[in-house]
Every structure is written in structure tokens, then in C-alpha cells.
């Protein structure tokens, strides 16, 4: 549903800007789907009279017009191509200098004819998408009136999504009432009076409802002396902004009242309606089900074969309307119409929905009726339309109000226990506030009474408060609020009006637990387990002698116990390594040769405020268990490095550099660490056999290597805290791979070689892989042979063979210069 802010402001006193209004609607539960700003127009746009419009020679559609816009220099000459442009009409003229979007009106020559302005269409002034012709203003529009004044600009149109339960919001007044309740702003309703002055004649007419269950109320009123013409400009503008096209004063009035009140109306041409019996004094309107094989020619020029379950509004003989959906073309208002029947009725929503769905026919009317409209609203509706018909169609009332109301919609009374608001919503609301909110919604506070779980239809049925029933506030519910049927519905309204932002949060979001730390710790442990490691748990103490064996001074940066159970448990541990070495020693003594052990625990250096988490691992023997087919191999540098490389990948750890690492217990040449910010985060290396011997591990006799992995989990947790992955668009063009084989001096390391390759064109070369390394026959001393593969990927296009060759040549050239390679 589209609503114009200016029109809405007739019913609601407010000073909200567009954004505030949009927010207010949203938090009222009315979703704003779109907002269309109609800006103020330049003052050069004014009403003007087309004095003459003559075809231009040689053009099939252009006309040269002389236009009166009260300009001091007299008539203005304008060339116009619109078919509806004619002498004597009132139009909107954009004078020279006006800026409309990208268009600036200038003095130009068209077909050699001078044109000093433009006659505008609705689209050109941003009123609608209509561009079939220029705007024709009512003939009595004064010349020289600003277009802003004529079209109520600036304005903003809000496109709203009304939830299906809120049929009361299907008109401007409903929206205004809800906002008024929500914001505490005054509601201004149009004054509607019963018309007492009747026409001289009381036209003969018969109304009958055959299906009271499907049509609980039907109000008809007859008018004579109707003058069909255009509706006033303001009404046309209001309709256009709300998405409807102006048609004629009578039809526009029914649409205007529908949009204002939210309840559709329909007008029939009295003289097109037939009598039921030849002897009847006048035509009839009969609400009945369709007869078998009855057909219907609708206003939209389509034919429908009706079913017996379809409800129709018929004249004495034939259907004049598919009730609540669409009128027939035969009974429609035409330019010749002078007497009309105005229908204001209520229909069963399911019946309307079934008919509309079956015949695939929807209208603004069926949209509203199928959401359930109260019969109570039909009276106001009819009176409002009566007033407007008299005023804008010179109509004379030609009958009493003919009101058939077979199934009376009685008012409902609902009880609300204030304590139940607190129970369901989570905070208490004072009684006075409850009354105030509900009154603003149109409810009426009746009295205190005993709580009762059902809606009552009579005040007299409300019981007095007793000891065993909590006191409840009883309200009379406005009949247009068909959605308010239980206490819970009232509670929802109160909570909505007070604002969902007022609902307190009971449990604050998780704030104590460090979920990230827990996750990283878990990932490290599970990664090692998946690589074949067993977790060990050792006491939290170090033996000073063991630390010395590792080359760690037990007196520096340690915390000592006063009362250790043994002197070898006298220091809070600063290294997990001694415990692991003991575990290796123990298990080797039990004839376990292939061992992978880790401990992930806190260490307690004196200079650390927290007790940092550390993960240390030792591994020796073969990679895996012996297998009959795929032979296992002894662990080596490449395997151990791979364990940490995959961990870095798992944690998305970006190391600044990976280079050699030194520790007193490691062999220099085979040790490596991942550094971030100058500090090692993950370390690995080959244990010094001499150190191992001090722990009773004789690697020489065993003919095994013992490798160490050490991870600063505490730092790893902090380093990975902010990592955020962003998906990269998949390449749209195929990648190309090229292999190179060359000799390179031993002094040139892989890191540098791969960096050099990438540096040739970082945009195109997206990866370098090492396929093989070879030393031996045909490779001179001091050299190794490498076989590499690099990937070329252009994000914009498929690479040409020529370009690929160019890059390959550049790679070879650069490697030759920088790394002294020799191609093989």
C-alpha cells in the first residue's frame, strides 16, 4: 500500500521528517518497503493556458503552441509533441531556466520553430510514471499557479507492507490512528455528518440480502442529478500519489473514501439496473450466490463463468458485481450517468478470497475485503462518500439511508491482567499506562472485573472481582480491530506501542568465557591427535637438575615451592620438555619405538602475569605403523615441518618469516621457527642426542632421531583473535600451468626462488609449486636440479599463448639473473 506523507498529515498532527516517520512506522509493526521522495519543483513550473496549438508543417505530431503563463512579455511559444495537447486546455508549463533532473529547459529550435519552454507530463514532474500525454489541469485552474502548490510538493510516498492480521491499517486513518497511539500525537478525523436535506424525489429501489452469512451488512444510498466530470485536482493528485489513476469524480470519490477509511465502496449506474419483477416500481440490488451457468462481464472487459459458491451483487436479473471484487461493465458509471446507487457493504472474507483466487481476479477492493473488514465501518463510509458526492459531483440525495444489517457485529469486551503483561513481556506496566495506550488505539476502558479467558459480547456478563479470580481490566474493543480477540492480543499491542526496545534482556550475552582461546587450544590439541600424537599429563613441577640439563637456569624467572614433596618437584614448571623426555624414556623402556607425545598445559614463568598456555611435543621412530603395502619411513625434517605447516594453515596463521631457530637442546642445522613480530610462535627441531642421554634416552643405540615441536599457544591465541576470512570470487577464466626444470646453486634457497618467480607478475602468477628436487648424476657438484610449476591466471581474460610465452621468458630471465639458474 502506498501512502503520501502530505495526505497522511491531514489526519495526524506531527513534525516528523521522512526518516523519523519511516522509523515510527517500522517500530509500529508496519514495514516500510520503499520510500519515494518527490522533491520540490522549480518555481519556473506554473499553470498555463494553451491559447493556440497548431500543427507544424512537415511534422506528424509536433504542434506549435502559444501559451499564457501571465508572463510580462506576453504569450510564450512552445513546441509540444503530445497528442492530447489542444487549444484552450490548462497545462503545466516549465519555463526557460527550469531544471528537471538532468534536463534544463532552454530556448531551442525544433523543426526551425522556436520553443521557450515545455508542457509537462506527470513523469516529467516526478508525480508518476505516466507519460502518455501532458497534464491537463481542470479548466478553472488560475493561470500562473506554482506547480508545487497544484501538486502538493514536496511530498514523500511510503510503500508499506501491512501484515494480513491488520485490516484496520488498510487506509490512511488506520495508519494515522496507529501512529497516534504509538507516538502520542493528536489524531484529526474528518467531520462526518448525517445529511438531512433530501432531494425532492425518493427514487424507487429494492434491496435484499439473500446470503446474510456472506454479507452481514449492506448500505445503499441513491443519488440523482449527478454531473459526471473530473474530480478536483487535489483529489486526483492524492489518488495518483497513492498509486491509483483518476477516472471520474464519482469513481474517484469511491476510491478516495476507500483509501481514507480503508473500506471499499462501489457505485452503480441506477438506470442500468433492472427490476426484479415487472411490477416493481424500481430496480433492485440483490446480494445472492451466482446461479448455475451465470456469466459476468467485468469492468476490466473480461468474462467470467461464475460458480454457485461465488457471491454476487445482482440487479433484478443479472450480476452487477462480483461482490467485493469488481463491478460489471454494464452497470458501471459512464459519462451519461446521472443517477447512482452507492454501495457500502461488508462481505465474508473467506468467500471473497475463494472467488478472487479462483477467478484470478484481484482488486484494491478484494485485497481489503479478504483481510476481514468490520460491518460497523460501512455507515461512516457511506456518509463520507455522500458528503463528497454532493460537493464534487453536484449529487442530490435521492433516498434515505437503506441499511440492511442482518448479522449484527456486536462489540467485544476483553479482560487484561496487568500481571500477565509482566509475565509474558518481562517487565511491569502501570495500569494507567495500559489504559492510556489502549484508549489511543480506540479501546474503551469499562471497569475492573473478574478475569475471564474469553471475549464477552455484553457488559452485563462481566463478573465482579472475587478472591479466587485476579482482578482484570475490561476493555471494549473497537470493531474495526478484528484481530483483537484475546488477552494475548492486547498484551501484544501494549508491548508494541511501548516499544520492543523497552523489553529488558534477562541474561547478558556471554561475557566471561573466552570462546576463542578455548577453540584455538582445542584445535591445536585435535590437530596433533589427528597427526598421531598422544596427549600426556605431567605434574606442574620441574626438577632444577632437569632444567640445568637442558641449559635452562633454574634460578632465573622461576617460582619455587617452600614445601615440595621431593626436591625434584621444587619449581613450578617453565618447560614441558623434561616431563615429555621422561615420558619418552618410560615408553621406550616398554619397547614402544614409534612415539608421538604432546602436552598442552600452563607454564609458570615468574615474569608472566598470566600462566601462559604452551604445547610441546616429542616424536621419534617411524611416521606411521608398519603396513604390508605402503611401507612406513622414519620421521624426518620434512614430515615434522609439514605438521606445523598444516597447523598454520588450520589456524590461518600468517608468519612474518620462517627461518632457523636456536635452543640449547636442539641441533642447529635442523631447527626452524615461525616468527611473528620478531618472536617465535611455533618452533621445531632435532633434539641434541647429548641432551637426550642425560634423560636416559640413547638415540645412538636405538638408531632413531628425536624431534621436538614447541608451540606458544598463549601467543597463538592472541595472534589469531582477529582473523577474518573473506571469500575471493572464483576466476572466470581458465588457469594455465607451465613447468620449468633448471640447475641452481645450492646457496639459492627455495623461498627466494619462489619469490622471484612470483615477482615477475604478481597479478598473473598466482602460485608456484615445487615438483621435484634432484641431486646426483648429471648435476654438477654444488648444484641441485629443481622442477617447478607455476600457475598463470588472468582475472579479466583468457591468456593468449603469446602472453604466456612472454611471461615464461621473463621468469627464466629473472631467475638466471637473480639466482644463477641454468636451464636444463
Amino acid at each position, binding site marked *: 500500500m502506498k501512502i503520501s506523507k502530505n495526505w497522511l498529515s491531514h489526519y495526524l498532527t506531527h513534525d516528523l521528517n521522512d526518516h523519523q516517520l519511516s522509523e515510527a512506522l517500522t517500530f509500529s509493526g508496519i514495514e516500510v518497503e520503499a520510500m519515494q521522495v518527490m522533491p520540490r519543483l522549480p518555481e519556473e513550473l506554473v499553470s498555463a493556458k494553451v491559447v493556440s496549438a497548431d500543427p507544424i508543417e512537415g511534422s506528424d505530431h509536433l504542434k506549435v503552441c502559444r501559451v499564457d503563463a501571465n508572463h510580462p512579455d506576453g504569450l510564450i511559444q512552445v513546441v509540444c509533441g503530445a497528442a492530447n495537447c489542444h487549444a484552450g486546455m490548462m497545462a503545466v508549463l516549465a519555463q526557460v531556466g527550469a531544471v528537471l533532473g538532468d534536463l534544463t529547459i532552454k530556448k531551442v529550435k525544433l523543426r526551425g520553430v522556436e520553443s521557450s519552454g515545455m508542457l509537462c507530463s506527470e513523469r516529467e514532474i516526478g508525480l508518476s510514471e505516466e507519460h502518455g500525454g501532458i497534464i491537463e489541469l481542470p479548466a478553472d485552474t488560475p493561470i500562473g499557479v506554482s506547480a508545487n502548490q497544484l501538486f502538493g510538493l514536496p511530498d514523500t510516498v511510503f510503500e508499506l507492507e501491512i501484515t494480513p492480521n491488520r485490516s484496520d491499517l488498510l487506509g490512511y486513518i488506520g495508519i494515522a490512528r496507529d501512529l497516534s497511539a504509538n507516538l502520542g500525537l493528536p489524531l484529526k478525523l474528518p467531520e462526518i455528518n448525517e445529511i438531512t436535506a433530501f432531494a425532492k424525489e425518493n427514487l424507487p429501489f429494492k434491496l435484499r440480502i439473500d446470503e446474510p452469512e456472506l454479507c452481514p451488512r449492506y448500505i445503499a444510498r441513491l443519488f440523482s442529478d449527478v454531473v459526471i466530470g473530473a474530480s478536483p485536482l487535489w483529489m486526483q493528485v492524492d489518488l495518483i500519489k497513492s498509486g491509483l489513476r483518476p477516472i471520474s469524480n464519482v469513481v474517484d470519490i469511491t476510491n478516495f473514501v476507500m483509501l481514507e477509511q480503508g473500506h471499499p465502496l462501489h457505485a452503480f449506474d441506477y438506470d442500468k439496473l433492472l427490476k426484479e419483477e415487472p411490477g416493481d416500481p424500481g430496480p433492485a440490488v440483490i446480494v445472492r450466490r451466482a446461479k448455475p451457468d451465470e456469466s459476468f462481464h467485468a469492468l476490466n472487459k473480461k468474462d467470467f463463468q461464475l460458480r454457485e459458491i461465488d457471491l454476487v451483487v445482482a440487479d433484478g436479473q443479472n450480476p452487477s458485481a462480483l461482490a467485493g471484487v469488481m463491478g460489471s461493465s454494464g452497470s458501471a458509471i459512464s459519462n451519461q450517468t446521472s443517477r447512482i446507487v452507492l454501495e457500502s457493504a461488508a462481505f465474508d472474507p473467506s468467500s471473497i478470497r475463494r472467488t478472487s483466487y479462483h477467478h484470478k481476479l484481484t482488486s484494491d477492493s478484494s485485497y481489503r475485503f479478504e483481510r476481514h473488514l468490520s460491518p460497523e465501518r460501512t455507515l461512516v463510509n457511506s456518509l463520507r462518500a455522500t458528503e463528497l458526492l454532493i460537493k464534487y459531483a453536484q449529487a442530490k440525495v435521492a433516498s434515505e439511508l437503506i441499511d440492511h444489517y442482518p448479522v449484527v457485529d456486536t462489540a467485544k469486551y476483553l479482560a487484561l491482567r496487568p500481571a500477565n503483561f509482566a509475565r509474558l513481556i518481562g517487565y511491569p506496566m502501570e495500569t494507567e499506562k495500559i489504559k492510556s495506550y489502549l484508549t489511543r488505539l480506540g479501546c474503551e476502558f469499562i471497569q475492573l472485573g473478574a478475569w475471564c479467558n474469553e471475549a464477552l459480547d455484553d457488559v452485563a456478563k462481566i463478573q465482579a472481582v472475587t478472591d479466587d479470580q485476579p482482578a482484570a481490566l475490561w476493555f471494549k474493543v473497537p470493531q474495526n480491530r478484528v484481530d483483537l480477540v484475546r488477552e494475548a492480543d492486547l498484551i501484544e499491542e501494549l508491548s508494541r506501542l511501548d516499544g520492543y526496545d523497552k523489553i529488558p534482556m*534477562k*541474561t*547478558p550475552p*556471554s*561475557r*566471561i*568465557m*573466552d570462546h576463542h*582461546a*578455548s577453540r584455538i587450544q*582445542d584445535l591445536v*590439541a*585435535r590437530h*596433533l*591427535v*589427528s*597427526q*598421531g*600424537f*598422544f*596427549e*600426556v*599429563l*605431567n*605434574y*606442574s*613441577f620441574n626438577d632444577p637438575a632437569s632444567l640445568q640439563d637442558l641449559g635452562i637456569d633454574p634460578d632465573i624467572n622461576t*617460582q*619455587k*615451592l*617452600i*614445601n*615440595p*614433596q621431593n626436591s625434584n*618437584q621444587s619449581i*613450578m614448571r617453565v618447560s614441558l620438555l623434561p616431563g615429555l623426555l621422561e*615420558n619418552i624414556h*618410560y*615408553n621406550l623402556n*616398554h619397547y*614402544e619405538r614409534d*612415539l*608421538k*607425545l604432546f602436552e598442552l*598445559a*600452563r607454564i*609458570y614463568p*615468574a615474569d608472566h602475569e*598470566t*600462566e601462559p598456555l604452551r604445547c610441546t611435543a616429542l616424536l621419534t621412530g617411524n*611416521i*606411521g*605403523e608398519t*603396513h*604390508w*603395502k*605402503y611401507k612406513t619411513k622414519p620421521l624426518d625434517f620434512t614430515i615434522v615441518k609439514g605438521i606445523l605447516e598444516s597447523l598454520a594453515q588450520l589456524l590461518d596463521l600468517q608468519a612474518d618469516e620462517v627461518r632457523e631457530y636456536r635452543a640449547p637442546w636442539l641441533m642447529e642445522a635442523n631447527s626452524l621457527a615461525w616468527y611473528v613480530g620478531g618472536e617465535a610462535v611455533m618452533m621445531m627441531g632435532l633434539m641434541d642426542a647429548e641432551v637426550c642421554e642425560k634423560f636416559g634416552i640413547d638415540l645412538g643405540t636405538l638408531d632413531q632421531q628425536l624431534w621436538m615441536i614447541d608451540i606458544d599457544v598463549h601467543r597463538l591465541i592472541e595472534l589469531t583473535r582477529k582473523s577474518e576470512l573473506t571469500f575471493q570470487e572464483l576466476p572466470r577464466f581458465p588457469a594455465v600451468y607451465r613447468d620449468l626444470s633448471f640447475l641452481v646453486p645450492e646457496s639459492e634457497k627455495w623461498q627466494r626462488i619462489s619469490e622471484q618467480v612470483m615477482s615477475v607478475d604478481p597479478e598473473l602468477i598466482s602460485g608456484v609449486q615445487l615438483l621435484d628436487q634432484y641431486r646426483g648424476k648429471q648435476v654438477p657438484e654444488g648444484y641441485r636440479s629443481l622442477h617447478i610449476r607455476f600457475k598463470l591466471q588472468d582475472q579479466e581474460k583468457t591468456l593468449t599463448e603469446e602472453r604466456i610465452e612472454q611471461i615464461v621468458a621473463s621468469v627464466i630471465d629473472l631467475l638466471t639473473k637473480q639466482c644463477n639458474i641454468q636451464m636444463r
Partner: protein
Amino acid sequence: MHTQLKELVAKAEESIAACRTPNDILDARAAYLGKKSVLNGLYARLRELAPEERPAFGQLINEARAKIEALLVAQDKEIKNAVRAQQVQQELDLDMPGWMSPLGSLHPVTIVRKKIEAVFMSMGFEVAQGPEIEDEYHNFDALNTPQDHPSRNLADTFYLQNGKLLRTQTSTVQIRVMEKYKPPIKIISPGRCYRNDKPDPSHSPVFQQVEALWVDKGISMSDLKDSLQNFATAMFGADVKSRIRPHFFPFTEPSAEMDISCVSCAGEGCRVCKQSGWLEMGGAGMVDPAVLEMVGIDPEIYSGFAFGLGIERIAMLKYNIGDMRILFENDVRMLRQFRGESL
């Protein structure tokens, strides 16, 4: 022309039979049936024949074409079948072990700790951490422990040269959390604790405990019983019952000991439960008002329960481990048994 056709078919038969790969078939099809094949050429030569002979010979070409086509399809199928047969290993002993990447395990105490954390996290508890090296205030004073209480002795508690001590229970974390955060507080704090006990089958100077604390408006002993039973069910199964019985702790009022029905004999009475049918799980109770006041929480508004469980003890019960010292030996023959519980 008739002879030529016959020869052609014979030649085709021969070379199709010699096809060994799907590519050979493609080549043969092109050679004998393709646009530039001899057979295709024969159609063009029909007009060399007398008009009355043309239909019959045309018929013959078509037949030859169909025959070659059938041969190609048959040979193609045979080749593909042979390839499929090759891909299936013959003489395969299905019983021989497959190749596995090596798999390790977590330590059983870690496994049980993680299970406990998961159970409580599913009940909405958060996991809180605190230091193991503590001060006397958090370990004793704030927990309402009298100054002359024997647990403060050197014989019970490890002290450090810098005046600090090793926490004797993870309740210290409760105090630290309550000092920092306002209720609602719903935490567990697992971690290492220390008591000066000589290692024996049921004691260790270093052990792990998990402490639960829930402070909010309206928390009662009833919530304590709920949480205990939920924990026992999640850990040991739906048949396990729980109970609390009166006890004394300085930091809870009322205090209780928690038991679960024996997981080994289902309450019948056995060696594990010393014939009682029940297993002691740990201490519990409503946080003493004095403790709440000490951390600035109004005991008139808030109440809470706390309980503590020994993780090693639960691991021993769950996996039927008879001696706590086994857990600290780190024998891979023991660890290997927990592969199935680890990931």
C-alpha cells in the same frame, strides 16, 4: 563395384577385430563410415550403374554400412568391458588391513574434562579460567575459611617462596568472577588444583577439578539438584540417580555432599562403591551469604549454588581405572585405548 564392396566389408571386419583401444574404434569408424570413406564414396558412384540396378546396389551399401556399424559397436563394448575388468583387482584378499593415517588420542582426563564442559555448556554455563598460583585471600579468606583452619597448613597446601600458594580448589575462580561480574553468573571453572597428598591409588598432589557456580535471583537448592542430575545423566546415562546429603563446608550454607548411584553395580552394592550402592561425587551447597557479601553481591537479592567435582575420579569411574597413578604414567599402551573417545 560389387567386388569392391565385398572386399571393403572383409577389410573392415579385419581391422575392427584388431582394434584394442577406444581410440582405435574412433579411427576405424572414421575410416570405414566417415564422410571421406570408400563406402561413402560408393553412394556417389551409384549413377555409374544402370538405373534399374541402382536401388538393389544402394540396398547393398546400406546393409554393408549396418554390418560395419554393428561390428564397431560390438568391438567397442568388448574393449570397454576389458578395461573395466582390468580395473577390478583380481586375487584381492579383502581381509588385509587398509592403510590408515596414524591417529593419536587425548589424555582420558582431558577427554572427561571436555565432556563435562560440553554438558554444562549445553545447560548455559560459561567456562571460566583463573590462575593456579593464588593468594591466600582468594583461596581461603574469601571462601570463609577460618584463619586457624587445618587446610591452611604446609602439610595440606603447597606454598611458594614469593608468599603465594597453589590453589587447593577451583572455587578461587568463582571469587574472581564474582568480583568482576554482576549476576546473573553461570559458570564452571575446570582446572588443575594442588594438595600436599602423597600419590596413592586415590590421591595425587596434582589433580583437576571442575567447579560450577550459578548466582541469580531465585536460585535455590532445587536448581542444584537439577544440575547435578542433568550432569549425571549426560555423563553416565539415563539410569543413573543422584542425591545430596547434609555436610559442612565453610563457604556454603546449607552444605551437601553429592552422590550418584554406583555406575558399576547400578546401586546393588559392589567393590567400587564399597557396598554402599552410591558414589561420592563432591561437595556442594548454597553459596554462603558471607561469601556473597565479601564480593559485593547482595544476598538479600541474589542467591546461588556451587559444587565441585574431581575430574580424575569421574574418569576413573567412567573408564573403570583402578589406580589414579596410572593417569600420570602416560603409558602409550594406556593412551592408545582412548583413540575412540578423542575427536
